């Protein structure tokens, strides 16, 4: 790779764009595209990066998150962005960190988290992820449940996670909106929200909705009931969207939060994150997306994705998978360890494979989960490199969350969300030594001052000490 240098002027442009995007959007250019600009931008991100200084990592090994591997390279971060990647960068006066024999990757991204909505401790008062009162609750937003002091955020950060997508649970056909966050605990939810990241809509196939509502003797109690429930809602949403597009404001329907969300999907502004285990159900969801003309971004917990790998590749739909979870329910029975690799390699390697966690422990070790999935794929006959597998926990989840233009790779101009690992990140013995978010140290293994401790952790066991040291 040749040295890539972005001139500072361009860099400033990027930063100011990002800032103006946050502050000015409701009154800015997008107004003409939007029916209700003020409403659309409600609860917008107020995130601003922590203070940072220019940092030069010397002699690092780098996985760029796109499949590239660079040995003995330098990486320069400045003003929250990646400024330069090269074989020998000189930047007088900046903080230099010797990264010899260490590895740098993009910050790890989890496309499926319930941190903050199923906080720790997992007590009933913190069970805020499933509005399991009706099968269609597209009106709820996961971010409105988020507990900013969830100690799980800081634990994930130590595992190198710089961004995560929080989804509602899977009790409902439409569970509500998901949102993406930068992994810095703040006192307000808006201050943690990833600037400019689109919302998602959580949908759920299969056993969960039919069990939850079937047990209450209401619809859906079958998989066909699930389908009827989704389709009825989309019919309403199409009508609502048509109504909202009327030029005469008086003829528009009364605003409806659930319909706003479904309309956002039909307008391509809200991304579908679809919990769906079984192959034929995923294929059915694709049929339905054609019926109502919307796009599915990702199938989550796609245990049987490998059975329809070509279809998913053809449709440009990502599959977010565990490395090896199975057996806890019937629709998770047909697990293969090569699932991630089969999706990745579909249609000449055009598949979009993601390793996700759905779990506060798993999110801390997504590098190990990717290592297992890669090794299983290679045992099944593929030749997948570590550099390539790194995509499964960086650029691919960034793409699925709609934030790939900002993060998820080590490329000039991207947010400086990077992890310095003590060794190769695919080894169990490697630990995240430094985690940077927008160029600022968010975690440093060797500096207790740069290890976040939430309010929850403070003095909770003994007043003199904190829960985590």
């Amino acid at each position, binding site marked *: 790779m040749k040295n890539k240098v972005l001139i500072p002027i361009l860099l400033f442009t990027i930063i100011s764009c990002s800032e103006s995007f946050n502050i000015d959007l409701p009154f800015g250019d997008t107004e003409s595209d939007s029916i209700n600009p003020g409403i659309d931008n409600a609860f917008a991100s107020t995130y601003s990066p922590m203070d940072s200084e220019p940092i030069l990592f010397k002699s690092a090994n780098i996985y760029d998150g796109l499949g590239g591997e660079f040995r003995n390279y330098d990486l320069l971060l400045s003003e929250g962005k990646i400024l330069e990647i090269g074989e020998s960068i000189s930047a007088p006066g900046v903080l230099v960190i010797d990264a010899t024999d260490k590895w740098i990757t993009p910050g790890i991204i989890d496309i499926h988290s319930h941190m903050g909505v199923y906080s*720790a401790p997992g007590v009933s008062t913190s069970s805020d992820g499933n509005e399991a009162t009706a099968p269609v609750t597209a009106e709820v937003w996961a971010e409105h449940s988020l507990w900013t002091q969830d*100690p799980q955020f800081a634990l994930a950060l130590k595992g190198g996670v710089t961004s995560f997508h929080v989804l509602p649970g899977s009790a409902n056909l439409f569970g509500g909106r998901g949102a993406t966050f930068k992994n810095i605990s703040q006192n307000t939810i808006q201050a943690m929200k990833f600037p400019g990241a689109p919302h998602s809509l959580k949908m759920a196939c299969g056993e969960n909705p039919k069990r939850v509502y079937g047990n209450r003797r209401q619809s859906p109690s079958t998989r066909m009931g699930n389908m009827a429930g989704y389709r009825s809602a989309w019919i309403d949403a199409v009508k609502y969207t048509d109504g909202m597009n009327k030029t005469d404001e008086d003829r528009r329907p009364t605003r409806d939060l659930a319909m706003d969300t479904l309309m956002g999907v039909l307008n391509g502004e809200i991304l579908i994150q679809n919990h769906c285990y079984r192959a034929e159900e995923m294929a059915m969801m694709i049929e339905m997306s054609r019926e109502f003309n919307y796009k599915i971004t990702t199938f989550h917990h796609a245990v049987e994705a490998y059975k329809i790998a070509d279809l998913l590749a053809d449709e440009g739909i990502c599959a977010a998978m565990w490395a090896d979870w*199975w057996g806890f329910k019937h629709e998770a029975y047909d697990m293969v360890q090569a699932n991630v690799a089969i999706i990745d390699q579909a249609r000449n390697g055009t598949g979009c494979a993601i390793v996700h966690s759905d779990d506060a422990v798993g999110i801390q070790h997504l590098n190990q989960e990717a290592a297992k999935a890669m090794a299983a794929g290679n045992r099944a006959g593929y030749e997948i490199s570590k550099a390539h597998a790194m995509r499964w926990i960086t650029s691919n989840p960034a793409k699925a969350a709609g934030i790939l233009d900002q993060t998820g790779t080590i490329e000039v101009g991207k947010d400086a969300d990077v992890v310095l690992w003590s060794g190769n990140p*695919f080894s*169990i*013995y*490697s630990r995240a030594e430094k985690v940077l978010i927008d160029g600022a140290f968010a975690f440093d293994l060797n500096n207790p001052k740069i290890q976040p401790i939430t309010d929850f952790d403070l003095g909770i066991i003994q007043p003199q000490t904190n829960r*985590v040291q």
Partner: protein
Amino acid sequence: MKRLSLSLFLIFTFNLSSETILLKGGLVHSGNGDSSKIQDILISDKTIVGIGTNLIIDGNTRVIEVNGLPVTPGLISPMSNLGIVEINALDVTRDDESDLLSAGFSIFNAFNPHSTGIPWNRSNGVTSAMSTPSASSFPIFGLGSHFVLDGSLEIKGSKDIAMYGRLGASYGSRAETLSVLESLLDIGKMVKTLSIEEILEMNLADQLELQSQDIIALGKVVNDGMPFVLETNRAVDILQALSMKKKYGLNLVLVSVEEAPMVLDQLKESNTPVIIDPMDNIPNSFDELGSSLDLGKILDQAGIPIMFSTQRSHNYHLMRQGAGNAVAYGMSYETAIKGMSNTVAQTFRLDNRGSIEAGKLADVIVWDGDPLEPSSFPKIVMIEGKLQDLSSRSTKLTERYTNTENKPSSYKH
């Protein structure tokens, strides 16, 4: 093969059991805590008969070149649902719960050697396991049994060799739980002096809704040193468990113990082995506020015997990933290997297993890489001297769906 001159009958049984095999030149982790060495392992008639570098073999011995790959004892899960739960969310596939029995609930006769979890875990290196009841009764769930995971309908195992229970947050007060536990142990003590019938007639037995099986099992825990495996986390609960151990002379094993570092001296002094999940650093409840990834290191440095559980059902082999993380956070490597094998065997009195030593049953794994790296995988799985098939439903499905022939998948077999 050796002993060809033996009678036909003997040759027949010999064939059924195993051939004589030399695993040549493996990096052998004995499971005893010793550091690894390049050695040969000679296996005959189910058993490890020799370890060394210049073992004398005859022409009938099958020699398998291991070429320096790591060799460990077969992994033993100290706590699993193998063979008794097929699918967790489907009650009709579960045999781990009882409405009738509590302390005396035995799952032994429910064990299904054809459960899909068995080939899966076996192909991932788990050669035997404790299978245990779930928490259908509280605070004691019932009795766990040890099973050899060779899939044979002729069940090889040790029936009802440990009792499992839990102390900690529940719907009632833990003070009540402690009082119930003590009453149960008092009943167990009575088995020494009273008949089961006499105990059954007592008010206390009636109040605790005990059946004769429960009383017999409690007697074994209190009077015969049957391992009593108790899950508990809060520091003060660990102390309560340790004082119960002292009072009743229990052969106590503690599970989870996330706040153990706060009561390390007492735990060490009590000589109590523990089963931990080194990856569980989540304060899942108000009992587990002290949970951290340093637990394994701290317990190891105190010399406490450590075994490994995993959070995930069906993947008991992931104890390797837990053990690996423990090592990444400071546990010694050989403690980790021992914790997946010999410590389990010693704790549950599986005297003929758990380590690579002459005289032990040959449950042996040859790995394609460092066994603590989750990306490594077994190359050879041997149970009682017999090489095991490494296929599973998972490998079958993989073959089917990586087959590119143009026909319906149901015809790809």
